[in-house]
């Protein structure tokens, strides 16, 4: 039995009828047609599916679409405003904080949340803040550099 919901995805409001069991990640990828949020584990352990829900980073593989009725979702596609990259996207690019890129959208959104909570994190705080997001390529060092660089730029 499908349920009616309405939500906002990257600033656009949408009205949908969805199966109650439809995972948010599948809604975003299969219904809303997005390619940024990725499926890496389906057990909420890797963070590749991370999106912002009302500004807070959540793992969209561990939520049902019906749970976000009336709420706002931001995916990586929603970050660059008018073609201008977000500070964190730019920092990831400058610092070579990605290789295969599969974890990157989730990692960037988690990093944004991290800086929103703590604008001047230490290295240990950055590492702790990113522990829910797995990257298999970079060894995290350049990601730490990117978050530091974004923090410095935001504070400048």
């Amino acid at each position, binding site marked *: 039995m499908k349920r009616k919901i309405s939500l906002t995805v990257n600033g656009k409001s949408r009205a949908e009828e969805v199966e109650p069991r439809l995972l948010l990640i599948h809604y975003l990828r299969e219904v809303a047609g997005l390619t*940024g949020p*990725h499926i*890496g584990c389906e057990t909420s352990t890797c963070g590749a599916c991370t999106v912002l829900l009302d500004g807070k980073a959540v793992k969209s593989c561990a939520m049902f679409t019906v749970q976000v009725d009336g709420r706002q979702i931001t995916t990586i596609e929603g970050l660059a405003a008018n073609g201008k990259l977000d500070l964190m996207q730019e920092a990831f*690019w400058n610092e070579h904080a990605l290789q295969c890129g599969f974890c990157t959208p989730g990692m960037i959104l988690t990093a944004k949340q991290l800086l929103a909570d703590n604008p001047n994190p230490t290295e240990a705080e950055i590492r702790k803040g990113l522990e829910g997001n*797995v990257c298999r390529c*970079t*060894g*995290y060092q350049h990601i730490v550099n990117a978050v530091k660089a974004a923090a410095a730029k935001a504070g400048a």
Partner: protein
Amino acid sequence: MATTTKTETLVGKKIRRREDPRLITGTATYVDDVKMPGMHHACIVRSTHAAARIKKVNIKPAEERPGVVVVFTGADVKDVGSVPCVAQLPGLRQPHHHVLAQDRVYYVGHPIAVVVATDRYIAADAADAVEVEYDVLPAVADPEKALAPGAPPVHPQWPDNVAFTFHQEGGNIEQAFKEAEVVVKQRITSQRLIPMAMETRGVVADWHAAEKSLTLYSSSQAPHLLRSLLSNIFGIAENRLRVIAPEVGGGFGSKIDVYAEDMLMTFVSQRINKPVKWIESRRENFLGTIHGRGHVDYYELAAKRDGTMLGLKLKIIQDLGAYMQLLTPAIPTLSVLMMPGLYKFKHISADIVGAFTNCFPTDAYRGAGRPEATHGIERMVDILAAELKMDPAELRMKNFPAPDEFPFPTATGLAYDSGDYALPLRTAMETVEYSKLRTEQQQARKSGKLMGIGMSAYGEICAFGPTPATPTGGWESASVKIEPSGKVTVMTGASPHGQGEETTFAQIAADELGVDIDDVIVLHGDTLLVQYGIGTFGSRGTAIGGTALYYALQELKDKIKKYGATLLGSEQVTLVGGGCVDERSGKSVSFAKIAAEAYRPMKLPPGADPGLVATKFWEPPNFTFPFGSHIVITDIDPETGQVSIRRYVAVDDCGKLINPLLVAGQVHGGVAQGLGQALWEEAVYDDNGQLVSGELTDYAVPRAHMMPWIEASHTVTPSPVNPLGVKGVGEAGTIGCTPAVVNSVVDALAHLGVRHLDMPLSPQKIWNVIQGARS
């Protein structure tokens, strides 16, 4: 739009990557992002037992579900060929590897049926509805247990579970052990690991019956190889078979293989005449994508009392799993080639026993055979140092070949290309202030603290490789097209999956042609677009693919000079900033003008054809041999057994660096996977062949807070094997890491009588050792 030219060189500089804009905006296309009209979805029913006869498969409950199109079982695919293995060894026992189990399953996760439906959820529900009745058989999941008398046979036709044996000797090993004043022996394991690329595998197959053509998207490191093998298996003409490796989310070796699912989706699409997609779940990725390592090694090292190393004996028991994947049996032979490490052994003897187990096959995972060998020899050197009461660094230095001994012939038949092996070790020792640390360690021990200093001096065999040594083919290809507007398109056969070749290859092309890097694009991964190629693995992308590109560019430069000379009416011109200059007259012609004229040849140079396109296939004359030293300082909590890494210093020599930013990324990522093996990761099968660490929830890959800061630097010894002087760096971090970490932890516990510990060095394992020593 005119082409800009420049004189600033880019090779050797930190250039941010050209592939990143699509990746940081979420607009890249991975396999799961591919959608086609009429596309169906497949879900695979897998065995829940490691060894069993299949009594009955009831697909009816699945077929009856709305939205299910068809269900195939073993009987449907019995005439489809075997999942391919291209590595051959004399006497290799190779079971036919059906894409769906026939009457028997051989490992947990073995595909039994495939459900095809109009929707992913429907396919998954229907797969759950398939009923399989098993007659469960005893299984064996440990290679040494598999080789013991009375073990359950994995394949009934080969009751000893031996897939092959292999022997190699160099020098006179008996003589070496006769002359020895000291012999040290140790059993050393390299545990099974899960490669765990962030993107699981996935396939979209699209068969067009009218044209007898297939387009196959697959998350692959070697799309042309996949095309050739599929063409052969299915009898689809190779020029009607297009394989696309779109954005590939990491591989680490695990995506070189052709898998049952590549074949199965081809089969399904041919049967339903519609596109079909299969995306591997993480659980399936753990159960059904190749694993790495899986060694039990027995070492004996013969030496003189002054530390001179004489001979090395090695017996490898390789856990192969139940089948041969693409390169499975070849991997331990690489361990044999690498067994002397960086040391001047004149005498070696090696034996491999390849053991069948009821597990998924092992194959190439980051380092592929070399990490096992390096871990072994570097542990043995530390064990010898402890036996001789020598400093481990001094013992290493004593046995390195000197820089003027290259090319250095090894007892395993290799010729190491170039090296100054003491240099990175000395550099790392200076960085950590080695002798001061040893004094600090003495003090720490007195106060009951556990502090370790561990090192590795590793070598690698990279740039795979000369074709005789590389079952997939060892050359690589590049094409360069200079368009009439002067824009440059590079097509590389070395299809990357995160390495950044779109950037490094553009740097090489921009420098050689003297054009702006923004005028260069690098294409890869599509067999319709790109000339035949081999792929990216074995740290070969830049050393071989980059060299093929270099030579293609030289051909174009010769042509540009010919055109330039004709346009200027000169005898001789030089290339400056992409254009040509007649130095006597001072006249010049721009790159853009030459490019345009090459396609409008009103004044054709003598003997020249129009156009500016070159393709080069390059076969390397030798491997390259990167090397380096890692030093790791650890502190161990005596109450919990927890290892913390105080400093991690990596000094790597990968020859010349094309882009230091990307090289650093490779080193960091490599070290992370090495640390994963040293401290946390292990694919654990229980005695029944159940994969206990079968999900990311139970398998400890390194996370940000687990990683130390890596202090990475380089020494630069150019390789003479290729004109770029590069050696390769993709696997260095992983290879150098594990022995340095384990040596450090053993060093911290040495005064408690500890001589060796096997990975992973879990707190529990270390706590038990400390408790044992105290009691």
